[in-house]
């Protein structure tokens, strides 16, 4: 059995020392992992240099911890930080209600939440439709413009409506007289320049023929006719 050479033993010890020495600070403050701490303890059993270093570092650590440092009073800083926290929390409360609504709807009462959202959507759609379908506002001055093809207001459900364009010399009395055989009445007009809508009871073609033959009636046509 051969004995290890002295230089080899020295080299091993040196390598071990170099590996352990950087760990001593954390051996002293007690934060080494158990396995590393065991290795350091084993090394210290024969390495006087490291034992001295551990003692020195321990003394230094204690001195640092016992050394009176500048004491900053914490109360003012604590009060300022608490105020800052309260301001932050106030802001968070202000903006958190939509989030809470969503959370409540999504978890605690999903059906109620869904119905609520649906109702809101329905109201919004109804409003949009109402705005789109509503008649346009009257022209300035309340005047409504009509063309000859615009349907006239109905006098009754059974009446036949005729639209007449009268000449300038045609009077209202003469018009009433011309309409008399058909129990007719003026239901709208004059619109524009001498346009009247009349409702008649009876045969429309006969009435139209008679009216067209009446002096002062430039045009006679059925509004809702065939």
């Amino acid at each position, binding site marked *: 059995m051969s004995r290890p050479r002295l230089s080899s033993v020295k080299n091993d010890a*040196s390598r071990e*020392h170099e590996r352990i*020495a*950087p*760990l001593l*600070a*954390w*051996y*002293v*403050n*007690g*934060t*080494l992992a158990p396995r590393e*701490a065991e290795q350091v303890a084993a090394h210290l059993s024969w390495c*006087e*240099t*490291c*034992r*001295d*270093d*551990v*003692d*020195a*570092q*321990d*003394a*230094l*650590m204690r*001195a*640092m*911890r016992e*050394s*009176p*440092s*500048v*004491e*900053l009073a*914490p109360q*003012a*800083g*604590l009060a*300022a*930080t*608490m105020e*800052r*926290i309260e301001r*932050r*929390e106030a802001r968070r409360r202000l903006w958190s209600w939509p989030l809470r609504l969503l959370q409540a709807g999504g978890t605690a009462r999903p059906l109620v939440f869904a119905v609520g959202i649906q109702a809101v959507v329905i109201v919004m759609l109804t409003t949009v439709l109402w705005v789109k379908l509503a008649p346009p506002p009257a022209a300035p001055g309340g005047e409504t413009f009509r063309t000859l093809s615009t349907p006239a207001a109905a006098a009754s459900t059974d009446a036949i409506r005729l639209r007449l364009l009268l000449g300038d010399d045609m009077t209202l009395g003469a018009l009433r007289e011309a309409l008399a055989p058909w129990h007719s009445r003026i239901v709208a007009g004059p619109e524009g320049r001498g346009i009247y809508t009349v409702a008649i009871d009876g045969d429309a073609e006969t009435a139209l023929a008679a009216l067209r033959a009446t002096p002062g009636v430039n045009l006679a046509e059925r509004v809702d006719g065939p």
Partner: protein
Amino acid sequence: LIPVGGMSGRAGGNPEGVLEAVNERLLLERIVDGDRDAFRTLYLAYHKRLSRFLLRFLRRHDLIEEVINDTLYAVWCKAGEFRGESQLSTWIFGIAYRKALKAVRKDSREPRLEADGVDVAVPVPSQDPGERQRELRESLDRALASLPAVQRTVIELAYFVGHSCEEIAAITTTPVNTIKTRMFHARERLRELLPEWRGGDER
């Protein structure tokens, strides 16, 4: 309220005002729920530790106070984001470290964190015990002040705060081997400046 000052079970013990890790986690859970009392307890427990840590490289008290308050306010705001992958103190000191770096950059009049330390003369020891104690403390402060800030930070976090090498690496976002190297150089410098704490000579 959770009492302050419990021991963590570490061989090196804990500095004054340190909460046990389990109590810290309970406090944080209450803070997540908006518990103001829990926050006050945590604030008071960390104020001294952070002020001591920050004093080494911020120096100006108003800046230290500002960084402490910003750090603990951030703890209130982000308490729910802490996942427990590290010690709570590692997380809080990491926030403080980053805010201190910003404060240093913002205030160009302050010494840069990466700046080298200044040379310090070793004083002649006094024979009076009281005077001797005072001298030792002063020489310790001078020696620490003379270290480059990155080395000083490692020394402070290891000896004073009691963090592990891995925690210091996490706080400073630096590789573990770099932390070991910084500690090695810091120790070399302190041996030179503090013969009282020299220990054995290196082989």
